[in-house]
């Protein structure tokens, strides 16, 4: 059977992040606003808000770690994790101190097997001083790509409540499918 290869159906990389084709944030960041890419950092927009990024996994894999791209100021704590398509939390780091300016902070999580399907990457911070590299596309395009958010969601809840985007902000985060990052 001839199957046209797509960006989603290509073999995935070792880290699937906000800028990866497997994440719906890819479209929002690429097309949302000219110049909205992840090469600028800014303070986290709302303390305790969680951002949920749709993730499409096309082949069985295992999530070993998660990553966040810290900006020039670190502060307080974050929580990063994965949810299934129904909003049930699968794994999360728990409250973790943001450390290492201008670095990719790698957080260990419980190894979690992922079957093909829809998931969500989730990220929340407890303050608006810490900075993260991010994209700032139009919120309507964020919504059209299925991105969601939830206020008062630190630490990440056991069950997500997906709200429509209000903050034009996509943190650069990812899930590592290898043990060494």
């Amino acid at each position: 059977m001839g199957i046209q290869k797509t960006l989603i159906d290509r073999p995935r990389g070792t880290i699937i992040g906000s800028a990866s084709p497997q994440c719906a944030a890819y479209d929002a960041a690429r097309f949302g606003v000219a110049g909205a890419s992840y090469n600028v950092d800014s303070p986290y927009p709302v303390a305790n808000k969680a951002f949920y990024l749709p993730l499409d996994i096309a082949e069985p894999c295992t999530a070993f770690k998660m990553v966040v791209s810290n900006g020039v100021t670190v502060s307080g704590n974050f929580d990063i994790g994965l949810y299934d398509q129904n909003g049930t939390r699968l794994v999360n780091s728990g409250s973790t101190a943001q450390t290492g300016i201008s670095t990719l902070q790698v957080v260990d999580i419980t190894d979690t097997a992922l079957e093909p399907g829809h998931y969500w990457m989730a990220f929340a911070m407890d303050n608006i001083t810490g900075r993260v590299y991010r994209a700032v596309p139009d919120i309507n395009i964020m919504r059209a790509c299925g991105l969601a958010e939830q206020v008062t969601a630190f630490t990440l809840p056991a069950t997500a409540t997906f709200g429509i985007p209000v903050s034009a902000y996509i943190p650069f985060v990812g899930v590592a499918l290898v043990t060494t990052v």
Partner: protein
Amino acid sequence: MDSPRSFVVPRFVHTWSRWSTMEELSLMGYATLASGAFPAANEARFYPIRLPWPYPLKRFFVANGGTVSGNIDVGIYTPNGGKIFTKGSTAQAGVNVFQYLSVSPDIILDPGTYYLAIACSSATATFMRSQAGSIEYVKQAGELRQATAFALPASLTPVVITAPYRPLFGITSTESGF
């Protein structure tokens, strides 16, 4: 890997996604999304999309702008202009929100190229859209129009566009939410 082990389709396919000709326009120049009036009353606009997998079409959505007026119609057509589905005349409702329109009966779109179609009875109605960019770029992106096409017709007789207008709208495999 020569073929995927499973199809995991995106929840949304729309005029601002990689499955539309925004892929091409992103390299040619386009403007920020903003509320703007529909180009002409009773006109229909068509935007190519490319689906590399079977797609379960559950709903359409339209990003309304700051003024709602009249009625809208949305649909999907083959590249030859044959109608697959149109919603029918529906009152535009909800300022600055996403308006969802259900699909019945269920439709599974085969992999292939389609036109997303939108028509509006009012030139006062607004949508979130991009209107800039050279008209020549937009033509290269395959956008077309048809005058006096509300509600959307059984088959298309499209003509070249005369002014760029790319509203944010599309299809979704979700049945509710968002």
